[in-house]
């Protein structure tokens, strides 16, 4: 109950954050590398154009999320320090790789 209340109070935060879009096609990320500013939170929209599900997974970013086949998902990243943060598509780790570059 308390957590629900907390969630309700914090919901408006979700509104401000620049949006970036990442596409999954043929088990690859496009773009495979993109740059975001350091010290800000961003909203990452992931569109899976493959028919099979994928899991966006990154130990560096401390993020993991399953995206249904032909589905779309949103995750929030940051604020981060400058650096390179690799991520993979865990379900197709042979081909699905990418990096978030923070500058």
């Amino acid at each position, binding site marked *: 109950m308390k957590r629900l209340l907390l*969630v309700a109070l*914090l919901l408006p935060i979700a509104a401000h954050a620049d949006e970036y879009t990442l596409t999954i096609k043929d088990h690859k990320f496009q773009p495979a590398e993109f740059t975001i500013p350091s010290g800000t939170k961003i909203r990452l929209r992931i569109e899976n154009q493959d028919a099979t*599900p994928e899991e966006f997974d990154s*130990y*560096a970013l401390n993020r*993991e999320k399953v995206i249904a086949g*032909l589905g779309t998902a949103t995750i929030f990243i940051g604020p981060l320090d400058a650096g390179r943060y690799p991520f993979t598509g865990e379900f197709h*780790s042979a081909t699905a790789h990418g990096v978030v570059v923070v500058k």
Partner: protein
Amino acid sequence: MFATAIIVFREVLEASLIIGILAAATRSVPNSRRWLIAGVIAGLAGSGLVAAFTDVIGSLANGIGQEIFNSIVLGIAVLMLAWHNIWMSSHGAALAASAKSVGRNISDGTSECSILLVIVGIAVLREGSETVLFLYGIAASNDGGQSSMMLGGMIGMLAGIAVGYTLYAGLLRVPMRWFFTATGILVLLLAAGMASQAAHFLIQADLLPSLAAPLWDTSAVLPESGLPGMLLHSLVGYDSRPAGMQIVFYLTALITIFIGMKLASRPRQTSI
């Protein structure tokens, strides 16, 4: 095949360790085995459902439905594990004194068993739904080599179950006077780790501030992708790059449940 085995192993491991610990902890509770098996079956059925509705769940609440779902499920698991541990603290002495005479606590035992059902069901549901999706993806693709990947999946699953069973068998060898302390500590750490994971999902969905992210970085020393990191992640909620808020959740769960256990294990007269 190897990559497939590792992914499935990682998913199965967490559920398997939770079941191993709880199976040991409730070994002298009447009928606990039946409830445990029912929990696994319910969890597997739930996995299929969650996997089938991934897109529906994911698109709820502007695309953060999956995080909300995961954190609610984890929150329920934390409450159930807390309840279990507090129940064990007040009945542990009786259970240890005579495994045969616990039949008299049948009504209490039943509520404990339904908690067991929920915890096991949730553990299987969470890890199972991802495994189902992953294996479905393999089966649906036409890349060839599916049978070798399915074989990898089977190997990963069996290896994950074997680790959980080893922990269970090891716990049963712990002498009775330390047994409830040992399982109590393991369950306490499991619950704290799940509270931290719930915070992790709420941060990912931007429903909670991260406070400091990461608070530390031990990924070079003890990466979560390695077996020790993987085991520690499942058992005590180890995170190589945790957010500050995860630690707040971890410690809050740890301390709250610990106090609950201490109060429950006191004699009735002195409890408030």
